[in-house]
């Protein structure tokens, strides 16, 4: 399962994000030799790691990162729009609300296979495609290693090259590499055919409902629950988070139900939350209401 970490839930993944930045430094600087990214802190954090970035991470049962990738909206500064601008020889990288740029793709464990026998990169790519379709993103841009380009030929993807293949690095002891700026158009059909080709059926998000909520096995941890309740008190506008979390609580622990009920009853007394809670009760399914009992009646 893939965890999606963004501005709404990153406080729940603080330790995981630290682990990711360290791992990225280890992979990109120490293993691949990208000296330009070297930092004394040994954390690979660049100008694109802002609150707007969305991270896709594959975690194992012990919350160890097996692989990951970053998406950045192209309405904000991107690699292809700034530092790699001159590599878009044919046309400039598009800037639009429905076009996002992916970067910092890494696999920490090449040998890992899911229960269905798939390597980590399969799940990562499918999660990103599912995310793109769900969020109505029409194209993904990025700088791809040359070695992966022929692989795209076997997929039913509409790939446009924004620039010629370029050689980078190779000076000041850096390892030389090759790659090209590309734009991949995304739609439901492309996702469906790709999944059929790879015999993949499951969705790969780790999210129960609403992409802002954390993945279940992290949400069960008490400290995460309390963090979450604090967050909701300050950000009542994120109703999707509330719904997602409520589902996680209600589906799992009996003890957690009580915590949600108490929090919900307190919020209901507050006029500020009244509107949100009406929305909340309206969006929970009838079956779920039955299952969770008096949660929304209080």
């Amino acid at each position: 399962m893939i965890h999606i970490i963004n501005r709404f839930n990153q406080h729940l993944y603080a330790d995981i994000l630290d682990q990711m930045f360290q791992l990225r430094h280890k992979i990109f600087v120490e293993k691949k030799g990208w000296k330009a990214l070297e930092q004394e802190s040994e954390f690979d954090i660049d100008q694109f790691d802002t609150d707007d970035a969305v991270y896709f991470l594959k975690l194992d049962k012990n919350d160890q990162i097996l692989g990951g990738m970053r998406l950045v909206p192209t309405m904000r500064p991107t690699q292809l729009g700034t530092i790699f601008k001159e590599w878009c020889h044919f046309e400039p990288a598009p800037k639009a609300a429905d076009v996002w740029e992916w970067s910092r793709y890494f696999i920490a464990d090449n040998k890992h296979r899911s229960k269905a026998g798939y390597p980590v990169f399969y799940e990562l790519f499918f999660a990103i495609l599912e995310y793109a379709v769900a969020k109505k993103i029409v194209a993904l841009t990025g700088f791809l290693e040359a070695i992966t380009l022929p692989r795209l030929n076997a997929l039913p993807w509409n790939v446009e090259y924004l620039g010629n293949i370029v050689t980078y690095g190779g000076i000041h002891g850096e390892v030389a590499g090759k790659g090209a700026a590309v734009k991949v158009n995304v739609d439901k059909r492309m996702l469906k055919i790709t999944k059929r080709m790879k015999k993949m059926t499951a969705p790969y998000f780790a999210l129960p409902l609403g992409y802002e909520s954390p993945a279940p096995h992290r949400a069960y941890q008490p400290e995460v629950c309390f963090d979450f309740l604090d967050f909701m008190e300050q950000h009542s506008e994120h109703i999707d988070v509330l719904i997602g979390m409520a589902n996680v609580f209600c589906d799992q622990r009996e003890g957690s139900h009580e915590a949600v009920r108490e929090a919900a009853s307190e919020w209901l007394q507050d006029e500020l939350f009244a509107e949100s809670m009406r929305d909340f009760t309206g969006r929970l399914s009838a079956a779920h209401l039955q299952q969770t009992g008096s949660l929304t009646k209080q």
Partner: protein
Amino acid sequence: MSLTMAEFNALNSLMKAIRKPTNIDQLNRLLKETLGVFGVTHLLCISAFGMPALQDRKPMFGFRLTDWLVHYRKNYYHQDDALPQAAMKLKKNGSQPFWWTSLMEHQHLSDLQYKIFREAYTFGLKEGLVIPLHVRIDFDNCVEEYAFVSMGGDIKKSEELENTLTLIATVAHKAARTILMDMYRKSNKKFIDDPFVSFAPNVDFSPLGNRELEVIRQFVDNETLDEVGRAMNIKVTTVKTHLKNAREKLGFSSNKEMIVALLRHRELS
């Protein structure tokens, strides 16, 4: 970029036009026109599909220098030419393109192989590039799809030209693949997505001993090593040893691949 204006314009036009051709001839004409600007006069793309040791090879697209082709065929150079042999060795993932002159410098070639390069030079094929394209690995069926493009002409070795020709080879392969898949789908014939058995070339099983052959035959009818052992009244470790020896003798990477080859062999004979 240090490409000339004419070269950049040709490349830019190709990138826009590459999706338009609806058949391989049109694609070849488009490539010939574009690559002519770079000095390339001869191009061939070969696709190999199937399990590693059983891959069937087919030409996909290209344009040839006619005089050279006639000379090449007349002298049966295809039997000794070092280029396709070296290109098929690039199947290992991560392999990089190589220039013809680099191959001559770094690899020990026979006199005849040097002669082929020398004669190609006199026909105007002064330098060339071989580009490996690792297209697909199907983990379930151990099937690989691999292609390589070899092109030559009056060109000079440079990093930028290598990058440009690699990009052209990649997009041309995509276009050719789309055209061929579409063509075969419409004609209801079978192409790349066919069951891999029908693509496997016939393998000579004669180097195997009787017991080794018997174990493989038993494996076709029995599912597990235990069952094969019981059927032949030998230990499982002996079954494993026979299979390992057979794989090594025939150059297969898995039992599955070897059994598919045997089925194919039976079918043909």
